[in-house]
């Protein structure tokens, strides 16, 4: 059989080709375009009572008493009313990791504003909120820790009793002799940088609905989660139900981006409540809860030293990173994941002789930190790429040239980085070169010279990054995680009428997997991808699997679907050859038929035989046409996508406003399954990266009170803030994955903060201003300019 580069059977390709690589529209669009998506709040289960949580108004306090009006006592459930529910304990398997518990609802101490204390149940949410408002909690207020650096500095106010300080974990990746490098370096770029705390903001909030199914004798938990199987496993343990007597269903999800990729305290509380009441109970997160009580993201502080020679060749990197992980450790990731990720990937696509990383995870009285698109990497990329641009400036060269010269070369692949990551394939410098062509750097510099009038400046910024995806078994082990997410499973099932169902354990909430997985099946089986049904999001409909996160689903579930449908293809061919009275080698699959020369037999006929008339099967062939498989990539170290972003911005120093004039992405995610979907993911990630760069911030005051609890204070990028990026692809298949596919869901969000902030700094380079903090708000820009103006001798007559 002919195989193409990515191992795909060429002869199975229908006309027009709609398998792996084809730009086809999405199967899942139809129900959403009809307004018929079914999200958690849409479920209509008779008798459902709604839950509102009573949440802490203080950031740190000991609960002295909880007063519940007598009329509402039966509608209010405290932790003590729920029976023996274990607290969540999310740890790394490392002796130095400091352990803490996160109860589903606070029992004695609250540690952030918004922490749940009680569940209030009523027929409507409004009434449930009335009950919640009637509860009075008396606190002994405790000292509040808000400032990241103070917390890291060993301040004495302790968040978890018995701890000597608030530091959870310190990781120290690296290699080489940094002191030797420091001695010989001509240039040292030394900077402090900060990526402030953010919320995730899925447009649909989180939500949980649970009830007892009397007939099946199981506890059914609907949750807006990215990982239903994993949630069942941990919920069962925490609330004391056997796993085979629990079903977790994730319906349509209105965006997740990581915030639905944790065990949620509310899942525990609602499931535990459903165990003891005889009606369904549901909690729908509202926007204020989302902004103050969901897992949050980022809050990194960097102290970086980049060593280079006088031509801009990087010699080494010395980095200390402090991440403020909030008050608790989130399961299964632990509160240290963010920081460990940052220091693990800081060197990015660059070669260097020495790297010394130190990642310090500290706690504070803020909501816990969880995964959000990019996990650690938007900050790491921002910090590293800011330094690269500053290095270029220092040695008087163009930033893109510096990048090209310092990057790992394609002939060095696979390449083990100074931080110990194994890059599988790619041509990093090519992404920069292509990007530079698309931007036309020389012509930009000409325009830039002309263009600094009336306080308006234009700037060009770059960001290159490597995006580890489809992290395998080895990777999770090396991170000391309690759960190992190195595989995915799938069942491929023909129905007796000849149609195909794929049952997978990942979830699809925007990524297009109802289309791209069908394209994989189309490639193996020669079926019409628009007619493949993908079932997911339900522990009752698929084999066990780990869920959709960390840009893993296309590689992992795609691989599993490929393997399962390949197995089916073999059997279909055997049956078809038998019916056609020819040999196995002389048949192929095309357009839903087994074909041999001029003759063919449709799959409906194959399935009739396989399911209903076994007497017509080949000798020794078992009835049925179903295959269940598990798949893990050949290497458990991950598949590495990469990209270079370039942003052209306009900075108005009169107002501090920034406008993005042009945005270019040159991207490589190995074999592309569907270019339309890939571009959609890049553009969508980019929007979130722009939010990170310019708009989104969740600040806290010194009492630990959140200052952004509505969309009036928490700004999201909208239609006028996000330009349409110009996107080009490079395709370097991964040697480790089926079809050479790499994940790519996060990259847009990883590169944008760095590219945009670099562009702003390029625009302001002649004003004496440098901004190394996100988001770059008008206040930060104008204040930086004012500061620069007051430190230089010029006063009036300059930009302010």
């Amino acid at each position: 059989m002919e195989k193409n580069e990515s191992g795909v059977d060429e002869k199975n390709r229908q006309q027009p080709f709609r398998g792996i690589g084809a730009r086809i529209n999405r199967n899942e669009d139809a129900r959403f375009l009809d307004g018929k998506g079914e999200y958690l709040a849409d479920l209509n289960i008779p008798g459902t009572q709604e839950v509102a949580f009573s949440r802490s108004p203080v950031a740190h306090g000991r609960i002295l008493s909880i007063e519940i009006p007598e009329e509402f006592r039966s509608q209010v459930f405290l932790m003590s009313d729920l029976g023996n529910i274990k607290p969540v304990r999310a740890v790394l398997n490392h002796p130095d990791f400091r352990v803490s518990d996160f109860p589903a609802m606070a029992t004695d101490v609250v540690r952030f504003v918004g922490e749940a204390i009680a569940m209030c149940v009523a027929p409507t949410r409004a009434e449930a909120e009335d009950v919640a408002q009637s509860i009075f909690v008396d606190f002994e207020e405790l000292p509040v820790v808000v400032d990241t650096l103070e917390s890291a500095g060993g301040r004495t106010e302790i968040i978890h009793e018995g701890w000597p300080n608030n530091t959870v974990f310190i990781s120290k990746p690296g290699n080489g002799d940094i002191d030797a490098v420091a001695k010989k370096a001509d240039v040292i770029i030394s900077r402090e940088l900060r990526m402030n705390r953010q919320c995730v903001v899925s447009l649909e909030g989180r939500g949980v609905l649970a009830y007892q199914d009397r007939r099946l004798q199981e506890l059914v938990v609907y949750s807006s989660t990215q990982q239903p199987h994993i949630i069942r496993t941990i919920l069962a343990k925490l609330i004391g139900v056997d796993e085979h007597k629990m079903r977790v269903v994730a319906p349509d999800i209105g965006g997740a981006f990581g915030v639905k990729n944790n065990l949620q305290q509310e899942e525990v509380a609602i499931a535990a409540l459903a165990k003891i009441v005889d009606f369904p109970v549901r909690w729908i997160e509202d926007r204020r809860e989302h902004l103050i009580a969901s897992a949050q993201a980022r809050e990194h502080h960097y102290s970086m030293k980049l060593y280079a020679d006088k031509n801009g060749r990087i010699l080494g990197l010395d980095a200390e990173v402090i991440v403020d992980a909030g008050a608790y450790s989130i399961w299964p990731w632990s509160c240290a994941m963010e920081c460990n990720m940052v220091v693990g990937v800081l060197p990015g696509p660059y070669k260097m002789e020495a790297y010394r990383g130190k990642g310090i995870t500290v706690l504070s009285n803020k909501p816990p930190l969880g995964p959000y698109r990019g996990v650690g990497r938007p900050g790491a990329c921002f910090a590293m790429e800011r330094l690269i641009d500053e290095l270029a400036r220092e040695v008087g060269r163009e930033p893109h040239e510096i990048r090209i010269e310092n990057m790992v070369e394609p002939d060095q692949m696979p390449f083990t980085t100074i931080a110990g990551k194994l890059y599988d394939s790619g041509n990093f410098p090519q992404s920069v070169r292509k990007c530079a062509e698309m931007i036309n750097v020389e012509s930009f510099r000409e325009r830039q010279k002309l263009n600094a009038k009336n306080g308006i400046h234009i700037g060009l910024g770059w960001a290159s990054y490597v995006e580890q995806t489809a992290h395998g078994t080895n990777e999770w082990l090396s991170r000391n995680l309690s759960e190992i997410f190195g595989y995915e499973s799938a069942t491929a099932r023909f129905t007796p009428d000849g149609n195909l169902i794929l049952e997978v354990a990942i979830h699809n909430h925007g990524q297009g997997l109802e289309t791209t997985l069908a394209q994989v099946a189309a490639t193996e089986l020669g079926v019409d991808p628009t007619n493949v049904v993908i079932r997911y999001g339900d522990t009752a409909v698929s084999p066990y699997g780990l869920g959709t996160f960390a840009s893993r689903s296309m590689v992992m579930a795609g691989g599993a679907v490929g393997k399962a449908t390949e197995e089916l293809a073999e059997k279909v061919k055997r049956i078809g050859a038998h019916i056609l009275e020819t040999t196995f080698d002389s048949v192929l699959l095309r357009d839903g038929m087994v074909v041999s020369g001029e003759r063919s037999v449709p799959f409906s006929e194959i399935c009739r035989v396989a399911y209903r008339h076994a007497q017509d099967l080949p000798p020794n062939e078992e009835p049925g046409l179903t295959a269940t498989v598990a798949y893990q990539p050949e290497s458990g170290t991950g598949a590495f996508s990469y990209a270079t972003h370039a942003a052209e911005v306009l900075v108005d120093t009169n107002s501090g406003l920034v406008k993005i004039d042009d945005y270019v992405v040159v991207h490589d995610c190995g074999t592309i399954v569907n270019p339309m979907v890939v571009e959609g993911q890049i553009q969508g990630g980019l929007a979130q990266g722009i939010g990170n760069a310019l708009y989104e911030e969740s600040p806290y005051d010194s009492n630990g009170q959140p200052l952004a609890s509505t969309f009036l204070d928490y700004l999201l990028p909208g239609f006028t803030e996000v330009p349409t990026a110009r996107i080009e692809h490079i395709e370097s298949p991964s040697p480790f994955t089926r079809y050479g596919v790499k994940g790519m869901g996060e990259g847009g969000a990883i590169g944008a903060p760095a590219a945009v902030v670099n562009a702003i700094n390029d625009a302001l380079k002649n004003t004496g201003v440098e901004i190394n903090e996100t988001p770059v708000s008008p206040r930060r820009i104008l204040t930086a300019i004012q500061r620069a103006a007051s430190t230089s001798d010029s006063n009036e007559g300059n930009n302010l």
Partner: protein
Amino acid sequence: MKPPPFDYVRPDSLQAAVGALADLEWGGRLIAGGQSLVPMLNLRLAPLVRLVDVSRLEELRCLEETSDAVLFGACIRHAEFEDSEVPDATNGLMQQVAAGIAYRAIRNRGTIGGSVSLADPSADWITPLIALGARFNIVGQEGKRVCQAADMFTGPYTTNVGDHEILVSIEVPKLSAEAQTGYYKIVRKAGEFAMAMCTAIRDKQHGLCNVVLGCANRKQILLPNSSTYLADVGEWSDQVRADFRASYRKDMQQANRMEDLYELKLCETAVLQTVESALVNS
């Protein structure tokens, strides 16, 4: 995020509406478009006992045009100004202001009177109405009264309208055909509340020349020096810009508003953009 319980009445006359407010000592509140109030109710930030819906009262939907003014009912919606469904008294200024308020869906419901009555310091209507010298017709148990623009806005979220009173209509003097207007606001993203905003009007024929500044969380202020300078200034030039900047700084000094450098700069930008557009574009 659901409101606490409250009563709702929709009186069929202005008098009944006044009564519906008056028979409560506390907690009566008017609702028109509800585009600011209902979010506050949903957040449980606006305690109240009774909502009095005045959005359909004829007196508040009135529209009267005379030779020198237009009387706009308080419940005329932003979109009606945007779409020129009501007469224009201001050479397009009010249409320009309306078209920039929040988003279309909000403009379809929100009313000029509601916006004025809430007096959010970043609301769009306030600086133009002060600059235009609008008059506000207010009704209460004691009867009708008229409030001048200069006395109407007493601070962020506070106006001259009492708890038991209703803003019925706004009378906007017509500008002459030669009048020049400018309106500019600085927003971080389209439709968001402004960080700084300004309206400038120069109507030599009517002897009207006002530059009014608004700024997040601050009472709007008329800038006397800038207004005076605007009255007689010639064509826009770099020198004029520099002079405006100086007069603006003087205004801010007199208003004791020099301490927040960030605000000072933002407001300066809003003022300079506004006077430039008044002089150059209109």
